[in-house]
């Protein structure tokens, strides 16, 4: 997967590139709007991460040029201003998602993966299986080591999210947004409690542990991960 990052702030650009590369992506970094514009139109990328506040050619123009050229490359834009107009403008111009600075890298990574997955044919699997955990999606049932585990609706939704995105660090805000439709940060540790309860049901009595805490970032579902 090849990504283009257009970011004029040197440190942010470097770390975003490093982080994405270490997550397994090939990353080109453009440090000016002009370079970004050129690369976006000539290169072949699976996704573009675009800062809109660029001193020369701003991000809006790049998105517009891209869409004018009939390119459907997903665009995730980064904005410093949390204003509705900015968001609406970006999405109207054809951007696919946005993040407000300062953002958490884990959040950026999760959004990038979501966007990349969107292009793929959705996997309509009736059954998900990781190690000895089996999820029966239509019946909303889970079992581990062939033992049926009783989960509430939300617990099942949470588990399904974790399983579908195994190997990814899921920030708490993303979990709250995907499972409960709560699109804002809460001061509470609601997600931690929910994960703890889920763990009690699917992990506590079993090995290997599947749900892992990634400190300072969120949670990850993985078979081989070691805390």
């Amino acid at each position, binding site marked *: 997967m090849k990504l283009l990052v257009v970011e004029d702030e040197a440190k942010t650009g470097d770390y975003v590139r490093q982080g994405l590369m270490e997550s397994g992506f090939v990353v080109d970094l453009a440090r000016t709007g002009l370079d970004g514009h050129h690369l976006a139109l000539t290169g072949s990328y699976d996704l573009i991460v675009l800062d809109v506040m660029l001193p020369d050619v701003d991000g809006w123009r790049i998105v517009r040029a891209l869409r004018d050229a009939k390119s459907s490359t997903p665009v995730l834009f980064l904005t410093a201003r*949390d*204003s*509705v107009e900015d968001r609406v403008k970006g999405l109207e111009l054809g951007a696919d998602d946005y993040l*407000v600075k*300062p*953002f*958490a890298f884990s959040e950026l990574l999760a959004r990038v993966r979501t966007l990349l997955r969107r292009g793929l044919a959705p996997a309509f699997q009736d059954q998900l299986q990781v190690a000895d955990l089996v999820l029966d999606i239509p019946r909303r049932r889970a079992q581990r080591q062939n033992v049926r585990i009783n989960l509430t609706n*939300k617990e099942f939704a949470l588990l399904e999210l974790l399983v579908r995105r195994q190997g990814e660090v899921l920030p708490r805000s993303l979990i*709250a947004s995907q499972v*409960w*439709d*709560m*699109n*804002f*940060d*809460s*001061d*509470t*540790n*609601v997600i931690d*409690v*929910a994960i703890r*309860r889920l763990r009690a049901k699917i992990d506590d009595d079993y090995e290997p542990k599947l749900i892992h805490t990634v*400190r*300072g*970032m969120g949670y990850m579902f993985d078979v081989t991960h070691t805390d």
Partner: protein
Amino acid sequence: MERRPASLAVRLTVSIGAVITVVLLTFGWIVERSINNHFIQQDVDELNAVVQALTHTLATLPTNIAPAELSERFANAISGHHNAEYRISSEDGAQIYATPGSNLDRFARIAQPVEKITVDTVGIWKDHGQTFRGAVLRTSSDGSPGADMLTITVATGINFHLHYLESFRNYLRIITVAACLIAILATWLAVHQGHAPIRRISREMRRIRSDQLHVRLEPDAVPTELVELATSFNGMLERLENVFRRLSDFSGDIAHELRTPITNLKTQTEVALSQARNVEQYREVLYSNLEEYERMAKMLSDMLFLAQADNKLLKPELVEIDLEAEMRMLFDYFGAWAEEREVGLELVGPQVCILGDRLMIRRALSNLLSNAIRYTPAGGAVTATFGVESTNVRVSIQNPGPPIPAEHIVHIFERFYRPDASRKRSGEGAGLGLAIAKSIVEAHGGKISAGSTAKATVFAILLPGTEC
């Protein structure tokens, strides 16, 4: 650019000056007319007297009178009327007698003969620099019908009347102009004088600097007309002062709130770098930093939200929201957390709906609910009550627990306000949750209030309702 409206002094002076001029001109015109009418009446009286004397003379004329005798009689008939001139002619126009030196032939020819001399039937003409008023009268020679008809032309010189009128008119003009000038000057002075209080107020306003926003104008010390101005200005000053104070408090708060995490980060990093450590220890420092950054980022985004609310930039996207359903969703979200704290969640009341921004309303309710759950002792229950008050919808979120003292509750919605100064920062947010809830409710045209008794603390929001 729009033109500046004319100055008040000019406006007042011009309008008052115009009114005075019109009044004076009208007055002068009336006086002049009545004097003129009076003169005409006088002339008519004189002419009639002359005619009477002439008719009398005519009636007593002997039949065969010598021309010299005739002239003498006529000349004597009108002694005392120096200005009067007259001419008597027979029906065929032959002159019988005329005042010596007079020249009434032309007038006698062109003027329409009248039966009686009145104000309306006299005429005016000019002859050799003299102006005359006169009339042509037809009468019988001896007053009896059937006698020879005679034409009597009488006139009186009115030059001195006209001179009088002319000088009167000039006099009037001078008086009018002078009176207008005086009136305009007086008006201007009065206006200028009248504006003195405005200038005084303006001087006072100029003295108010940004560090003296507490200074107020004295509404009792200005004329009645300016009381409103002074009061409005004081009102504006008060609003400015409030915003100003809030802003400086806010930036002070930000600095204060950021100082702690930055100090932590700095100390931690410095200590970590002061000697070589193993990877695990470095990782620990970075994790700890990450948590600190998270908190700061969250605080920043909350503060940005509040700044937008302050600048009236929150533009709710209105959709119909079933508040009860929203609350159930939040109960679902917070359920596990509440359960773990052994706090129950209860919902009372009818289904109520509002028009609002779903994300914002959810956020406001979430802040109130999480706050309530947090302060409920184990075993207690948070109750969300819905109600309808005329066109409004009321949502109360009540929790048992230690009461919030009255001195704190008035400040409870202020940003960064924490009743308990020693309360730990960690896990409790930055003290912006209630301020955000308040901003959201107010952006929706609603009201939020807080009350606390020994038994329970209640946060209530009142929002314009809509049909479900």
